[in-house]
């Protein structure tokens, strides 16, 4: 198994522990990765609010780069994944528009998106390509006794037509993955809600309240930690947790792990290599770095 690894911006910036963990987890699983060092930002839905065709060109270029290598893309960010899928649907569903985007792309880099690449998130690849049974065989350090609340991130389930989840309104993919790692999944009301990250600059109060509601909901349901496939959710829930504590009027102490960190831990990657120390809320107990 071999994929083109699309890192996105956060895994190169404020979430470098995510990139390290995803690589280490894949190494343990025998999944070969070729990092796409020449791929640009997906636009995160923001570039498209300035100029939709530029956003589509960035993503068409990324797809073309993977096609040139003959590889499918692995994402490690739910937002990148969702934006890629939306862009791909738009391009694949409208031949004229795709031709226009490719014509523009030809002017700047001579590349062409042909339409042959598959784009999926790390956890979807584990579930669909690798298989949970095979993953279970590789688990050497089952995360027994740890109650994990999965926080999906908006783009994982919405829009449902661009989602890879079987039932986007009530998914269980991450819970199944958590179970396969030996941990106990915790279901809670807010697991599909927005973390508020996109408006952290425009409306901090609302953004922090959204994050606060999510953590309180997970905590009340008994979660020891939360785990997310979206590094933007991670940033809002973890880096802003002191502000969130003030907002909701309680000390939450909720560690927010990246899904690949959790996978790597169960596969026996030493905790010291997963940069858990860089988290604002460090995990405690058996997961303490």
């Amino acid at each position: 198994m071999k994929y083109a690894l699309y890192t996105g911006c956060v895994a190169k910036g404020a979430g470098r522990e995510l990139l390290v963990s995803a690589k280490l987890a894949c190494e343990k699983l025998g999944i070969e990765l070729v990092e796409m060092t020449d791929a640009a930002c997906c636009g995160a839905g923001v570039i498209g609010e300035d100029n939709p065709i530029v956003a589509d060109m960035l993503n068409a270029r990324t797809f073309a780069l993977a096609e040139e290598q003959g590889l499918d893309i692995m994402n490690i960010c739910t937002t990148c994944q969702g934006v890629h899928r939306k862009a791909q649907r738009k391009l694949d569903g409208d031949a004229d528009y795709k031709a226009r985007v490719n014509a523009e792309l030809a002017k700047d880099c001579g590349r062409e998106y042909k339409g042959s690449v598959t784009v999926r998130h790390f956890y979807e690849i584990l579930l669909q390509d690798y298989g949970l049974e095979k993953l279970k065989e590789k688990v050497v350090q089952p995360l027994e006794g740890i109650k994990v609340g999965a926080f999906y991130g908006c783009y994982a389930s919405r829009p449902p037509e661009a989602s890879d989840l079987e039932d986007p309104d009530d998914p269980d993919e991450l819970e199944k993955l958590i179970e396969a790692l030996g941990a106990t999944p915790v279901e809670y009301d807010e697991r599909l809600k927005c973390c508020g990250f996109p408006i952290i600059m425009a409306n901090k109060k609302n953004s922090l309240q959204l994050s606060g509601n999510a953590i309180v909901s997970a905590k009340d349901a008994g979660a020891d930690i939360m785990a997310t496939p979206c590094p933007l959710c991670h940033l809002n829930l973890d880096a802003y947790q002191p502000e969130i504590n003030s907002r909701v009027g309680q000390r939450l102490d909720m560690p927010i792990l990246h899904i690949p960190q959790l996978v790597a831990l169960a596969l026996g990657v030493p905790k010291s290599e997963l940069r858990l120390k860089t988290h604002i809320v460090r995990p405690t107990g058996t997961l303490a770095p």
Partner: protein
Amino acid sequence: MASSKVTFRIQRFDPEKDEAPRDQDFQLELEPGITILKALNKIQAELDPTLALRYSCGSAICGSCAMKVNGHARLVCKTQVSDCVKDGVLRVGPMGNLRVLKDLVVDMEPFWDSLDKVKPYLAPDPAQAAPEKERLQSPEEFLRIDPSTTCILCGACYSDCNVLEVDKSFVGPASLAKAHRFIFDSRDAETTERLRKISEKTGVWDCTHCGECSTRCPTEAKPLERIEEIRVKAMTEGHHGNAGARHVLGFRETVGRRGLLDENYLPARSVGFFNIPGLLSIIPVGLRMMKRRKNPPLRPHSIDKVDEVKKTFARFEELRK
């Protein structure tokens, strides 16, 4: 197909008797092909006449019967029971973000009020004499507002909007779709004023993009897509004096320079370089991240072959001028 047994778990609440909402189960033997509305009618007629619900046309036109099915807002008249049963159970509750009057009936007043905030009617140029008959549009002009005119004001988007859950002053997705309907109307003369107003706090930039509104919308109005179109127009027409727009500009600038986002630059750009309280407010999180070595590298990263991307941004920047 044979009939099947379904448990309807319905949220009941009578403010005159109950302190808090409670669930009540009703067992129904249902024929295939029945909608949730028909099933609720059956419960009301045969099992409990006190069950309160609101409905009218039964044909997904009037927009009265939006309620939560398994936790998500839907028009129950266009939703099949068989699509929503999980382990023999189907949960029904009132819409979210609105006060429950009784059982499945909510107070729609805040929803109607939110529409008023966007001046939901045509404002033609007063300097132009009124036409003898109607004001005409070309088919192309109409296509621009075609999606937003399909809104049936059911409130499903309002019910599931994540931002409204934490802030009732947010104008909301239905109102933004309604605003779109006039901002993009060729006969409306107040586009600039509408864009200016909607770019202020509680307006178009307070949406988080969570996608609930479009997911729940039973028509082609799809508020999130309309919100994105409003933002593009607001950006194009230079309504840049707010954090949301500055965030977009910062994105364009850093991705256009390096191919990736510069997470050190963007927060300061978004709050505004001369906004001292704003800048001070982002210092604690910055320091906290630095202390943990979680901060983005001070020398920001660029992608390989960044010139390819730079060219695209530069070329479209020229076109804009």
